[in-house]
């Protein structure tokens, strides 16, 4: 039977369906996050008064605590607070900034409890760093990992294969903060090849941008490149034993074409999926890297937010990260539908 897709634009329906699902997913995620950060501590015995007094200086009077409670809207019931939060994201919100009402345009993730600044712009200002970090590292690990993986697969059992797979395993087994600190200690202080790991915007000085980020890139990429080398190797070994590779050879194609056009092309498809997921999940890696290298990105922002127990910030960054993950998954799925003609839903 021919299995031609009957729907006119399967990819488009698919994307629309996934987008709607994504919105639902994010709402559920936000609800759970909200519940966990606002509800769970209360179940564990925290009072709103205690919460409010966290954001006061040294000697809070009850009156001051009450003022803060009101100011942060902590006195409202939780569902109301959640509704306010959602509305802010969609419609924006007006906040009392003191002299006047400040408008926080959508997506408004509320105001930081700690420094009373809107959360969204602070997160946005951290984005370039995290994106630079992620993008550079991703390119590094993708290119490096795939290249090593392909060579290892083709030279299966050779010294190169064993060695690179050993290194790969080491990469996966070493905590990122450990490698990061050692790299920093060696290449930034002891032999200052990459001194001053510090973020310089790309637009300001691309060369300095790259130079300053080399160390974090390598450290972050080391963890992932290892994984990708292993995945590529396994994928290549599998595809190279597929029947269609035999067909390609039977056609008399040069080995290079067989490997890259036929073998790698197919082996890369699952890697695309994992790559997308990893990009989405990169905040985790970014936290450790940014803390280790003091890069002012989302990761460091997150840690700060958590240290300050700044709930709107925590909520915002959790949601933003969830958003990245979900979007990355969506992109991966769409990409998959584009890359692999068999996937049509």
């Amino acid at each position: 039977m021919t299995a031609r897709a009957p729907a006119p634009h399967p990819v488009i329906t698919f994307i629309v369906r996934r987008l709607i699902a994504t919105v639902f997913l994010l709402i559920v995620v936000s609800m759970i996050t909200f519940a966990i950060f606002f509800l769970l501590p209360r179940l564990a015995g925290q009072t709103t008064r205690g919460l409010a007094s966290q954001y006061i200086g040294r000697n809070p009077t009850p009156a001051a605590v009450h003022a803060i409670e009101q100011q942060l809207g902590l006195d409202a019931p939780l569902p109301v607070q959640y509704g306010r939060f959602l509305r802010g994201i969609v419609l924006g919100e007006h906040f009392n900034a003191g002299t006047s009402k400040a408008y926080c345009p959508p997506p408004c993730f509320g105001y930081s409890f700690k420094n009373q600044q809107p959360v969204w712009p602070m997160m946005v200002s951290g984005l370039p760093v995290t994106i630079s970090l992620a993008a550079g590292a991703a390119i590094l690990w993708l290119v490096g990992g795939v290249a090593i993986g392909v060579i290892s697969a083709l030279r299966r059992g050779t010294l190169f294969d064993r060695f690179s797979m050993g290194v790969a395993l080491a990469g996966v087994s070493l905590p990122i903060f450990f490698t990061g600190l050692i790299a920093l200690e060696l290449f930034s202080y002891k032999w200052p090849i990459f001194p001053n790991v510090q973020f310089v915007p790309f637009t300001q000085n691309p060369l300095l941008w790259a130079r300053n980020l080399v160390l974090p890139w390598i450290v972050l990429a080391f963890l992932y490149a290892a994984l990708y080398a292993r995945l590529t190797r396994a994928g290549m070994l599998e595809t190279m034993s597929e029947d269609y590779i035999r067909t390609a050879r039977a056609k008399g194609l040069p080995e290079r074409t067989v490997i890259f056009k036929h073998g790698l092309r197919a082996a890369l498809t699952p890697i695309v999926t994992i790559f997308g997921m990893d990009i989405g999940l990169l905040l985790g890696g970014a936290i450790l890297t940014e803390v280790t290298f003091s890069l002012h990105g989302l990761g460091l922002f997150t840690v700060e937010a958590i240290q300050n127990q700044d709930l709107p910030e925590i909520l915002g960054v959790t949601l933003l990260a969830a958003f990245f993950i979900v979007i990355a998954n969506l992109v991966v799925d769409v990409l998959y539908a584009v890359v692999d003609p068999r996937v049509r839903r």
Partner: protein
Amino acid sequence: MSTPVSTAGTAGAIGGAGDALLEVTGLTKHFPITRGIIFRQKVGAVQAVDQVDFSVAPGQTLGLVGESGCGKTTTGRLLTRLLEPTGGRIMFEGRDITHLSMGKMRPLRRDIQMIFQDPYSSLNPRHTVGGIVGAPLRLQKVKTEKGIKATVQELLELVGLNPEHYNRYPHEFSGGQRQRIGIARTLALRPKLIVADEPVSALDVSIQAQVINLLEDLQNELGLTYVVIAHDLSVVRHISDHVAVMYLGKIVELAGRDQLYAAPRHPYTVALMSAVPVPAPVRVDGRRQRRERIRLSGDVPSPLNPPPACRFHTRCWKAQEVCRTQEPPLTELIPGHRVACHFPENTAASAE
């Protein structure tokens, strides 16, 4: 074989309730196809089995042939109630089992058993042969005089396996041996009806015959009734008393084996038979020659939207307007031979 097949009439009338062990009328299975952005709605259905009638007398074998995707397996799974029929009726020993619940069906499972096509996937690789063959006994809580182990070993012996293989795992056996294990499991509950779904098509030629012989011997010995599903016309001829030919979810021809193979009536059956390669080279002047055969063009259409009226008309060389507009009923042209065709073949032959 002399017992004539008791074929069900269009209205489902049969000679007598006691005649048929299994009687199927208007059996239909549609698999819904859903689509939708948020809420999935039904947009169509795969008409895997559509209005199928037949019956099988005790001790007899009904062969079910047809091309891939015509609904043979689905029919088999409906008979054993692994699938819920969309419509129609299945009578087993005069009892309506069409919509029996899983719980009510459970005791009946002793009587209706299935042999599966793939000897590799039909045995759980993590269970021992003893566990596999003994499972029906344990599940149905059958009391055995000598205990389960002895019973299982007897069964193994019955299907020609070494009883000492009790504690071995399926992967230690060849395909033919595995199929025997599957058969032993089927026999454990002493069923009356066995539905065998392509029991030999996964086996090597040299092994096929072993299993076919085994099935025949068991039938003779235990008085089993078979519904054998196969796509190999020669195997079906060898094993069946009656043969039903399916095309796109429908039975197009149903007759006694000899009748059918001697003089097929439905053009599809004719084409099917002529397509079977024969291990006898045709030579003229020492040069090989092509065997004359009826060539069917194209592929089987999709059961998602099968052609209207006679489903075969798109590939039939005899098709006329009526074939496109009117569905031919499965009528009994001559006794014991039913055909669903407006222009049946070999009518002269039957007139003899």
